[in-house]
């Protein structure tokens, strides 16, 4: 696990979130959703703090964080790229798109470029199957993409 220390301000916000949910262990997932929203990921220190507030073992918090794909322990890039790997996108060529993103960015799925600009992930169906294959970068949805488009998209963002 990383050695990032939480800024005081963030720690206070996390505590406030736990208090808002009555420090109840049953509210863990809702708390994690809100906590992840603060910085885009859930560093170790944050999980320790939540465990302490809810009076449950850190292993339980870590167990939940690692179980669900929505939660992440690595910081995302300035432009988080998610390639839809739903079946509809898969049969319309999303695997080739993903390969091209990996090649152009030089990172694997779940990683962030060293300059912190781009991170690459897969997601399971956004339900815009009419636009397949779909890639989401930040809030913007790119539909009907082909691998030849990838380089240009990255260059435009840079």
């Amino acid at each position, binding site marked *: 696990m990383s050695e990032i220390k939480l800024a005081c301000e963030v720690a206070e916000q996390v505590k406030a979130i736990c208090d808002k949910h009555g420090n109840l262990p049953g509210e863990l*997932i*809702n708390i994690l959703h809100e906590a992840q929203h603060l910085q885009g990921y859930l560093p170790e220190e944050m999980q320790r703090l939540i465990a302490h507030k809810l009076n449950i073992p850190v292993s339980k918090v870590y167990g939940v964080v690692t179980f669900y794909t929505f939660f992440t322990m690595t910081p995302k890039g300035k432009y988080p790229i998610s390639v839809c790997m739903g079946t509809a996108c898969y*049969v*319309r060529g999303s695997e080739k798109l993903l390969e091209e993103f990996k090649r152009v960015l030089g990172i694997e799925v779940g990683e962030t470029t060293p300059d912190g600009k781009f991170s690459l992930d897969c997601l399971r169906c*956004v339900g815009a199957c009419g636009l397949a294959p779909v890639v989401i970068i930040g809030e913007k949805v790119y539909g009907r993409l082909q691998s030849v488009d990838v380089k240009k998209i990255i260059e435009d963002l840079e």
Partner: protein
Amino acid sequence: MKILSTHDLQAIMQRAENALRLREQSNKKIAEKSCGLTIGTDHLQILVCGGTGCTASSGHLIAEHLQKALEQYNIVHQVEVITTGCFGFCEKGPIVKIIPDNTFYIRVTPEDVDEIITKHIINGHRVERLLYIDPKTERVVSDSKHMDFYRKQQRIALRNCGFINPENIEEYIARHGYLALADSLLHKQPIDVIGVIKRSGLRGRGGGGFPTGLKWESAHKQAADTKYVVCNADEGDPGAFMDRSIMEGDPHSIVEAMTICGYAIGSRQGLVYIRAEYPLAIQRLKTAIAQAREYGLLGERILGTDFCFDIEIRYGAGAFVCGEETALIHSMEGNRGEPTLKPPFPAEAGYLGKPTNVNNVETLANIPIILTKGAEWFSSIGTERSKGTKVFALAGKINNVGLIEVPMGTTLREVIYDIGGGIKGGKKFKAVQTGGPSGGCLTEKHLDTPIDFDNLLAAGSMMGSGGMIVMDEDDCMVSVARFYLDFTVEESCGKCTPCRIGNKRLLETLNRITQGCGTEKDLETLSTLGHVIKDTALCGLGQTSPNPVLSTLNNFYDEYLEHVKDKTCRSKQCKALLTYSINPEKCIGCHLCFKHCPADAIIGDVRKPHVIDPNKCIKCGMCMARCKFKAINVC
């Protein structure tokens, strides 16, 4: 205002009916002429699809631009812009529909708005270039009722999607919404409500197909001070978006159905377990809950009776296994979503150990209309053992991607060729995958099978939640099986050994085969291991996870054999089995492939035929995509 009686409800219904009258009328009659403010009508409505698919392609901007244009031309009082739920025809989105003449505009962009306003809304002339052209007859079809895509559909669960404004409770009430709740609370005993649902023959739409009435009855029979009603909105099947569209397009039907269920089983608390990835559905649901509370249809003393019921929202965090009801319950309790053995069933000991009734979104959407129209009406639709309709998310290599609803018993051929408009690009149909990662692939020989729970199971697949992915000759069935296994391995919770380790071994074997290292023995392993996992896994996810492998082995054994014996992939999908080469007769030496090859694997001088260095080639296919002379061969 709080609604305290059926009388109050009817008063709102009448008030709101005016707003809907224009739409109801145009829904019935066939539009012959287009209308505009200068001819034919003095009042128009513009419906804009507000589903996720259309919103993703700037549908929200269209509504904004329309509103601005109305202000600019000073016609705000005569024309309304209404954002509705999904129309279903996602392939052609964003969709804009003009009422009363029912003109259906497709692939609209924000730039088209001004023309729609000036030409159609003001002067009554359709914008021809935005109309749908029937690919078979090549004729323009302006009214959606005449499109093949809609003609064979029967919309029950989707009755309000694309018709009402989902954020306006009064429009829902005008469509007889909350009438079933009022009738149940004021005139029926809980056991009578359950009786209607039982007689209707409604079966769970989430995948299992368990009779809903029986489920309610067993929760009703439990003696407990606290019981829970749970709506399973954790639609995890990749390529399926039925539940999301219902929640986005008709959230009140879910609120009403859950409240009715609460009354029937004796519960005061409802919970919606919804994917956090569905922000629009969450927002619409929250709005609907707040409005229902305001109108006295949710909360304390509903409709002036002693019955109290409220709904809370819980967020999923992306785990496919949480679609399984015991796993879902553990997740709602803040734990890892691992399933447990049944019995005890959730109806006996569910959320926080209390009796819990879990129903899927589409199942619930059917409840209010069954109660208003009657069990006999519902059971007259469908097949002998599967009643009513089913919503499918039709996607993949098909012309009309979208959300459809058909009566049970419709054949796959009707769905794929009539509604779906056939295979994209005139390619040959190969398979249709139903039931997502738990289902199987059906082939040409199954095309005339009437779709229902039992027929699909007998054909080696399953109904599942309604994902339907069409594949053509370019899809490799071994890679498709590998794709699903990859999904299952990632989503397996790891609790039971057959699923955790067995599926991993299946995936490794499939990887070997697609990489050209498979043997005939591997095919035997796939089959034996697959059956062992089916028989021994703990929950529904594990027990169904080998289905994609077993069904493709069954129906496409030749393709597997080619991969392991000849080391070829006829669909040209398995990269390791492909060789790229340049046809020297076609290559003019334009150097384009040379420039774009990421691996510097192409050798050759300008204006002379090039060659590919097989040692450097990474088989990305970039040269093929770039070549303008079709000089690249792959075999």
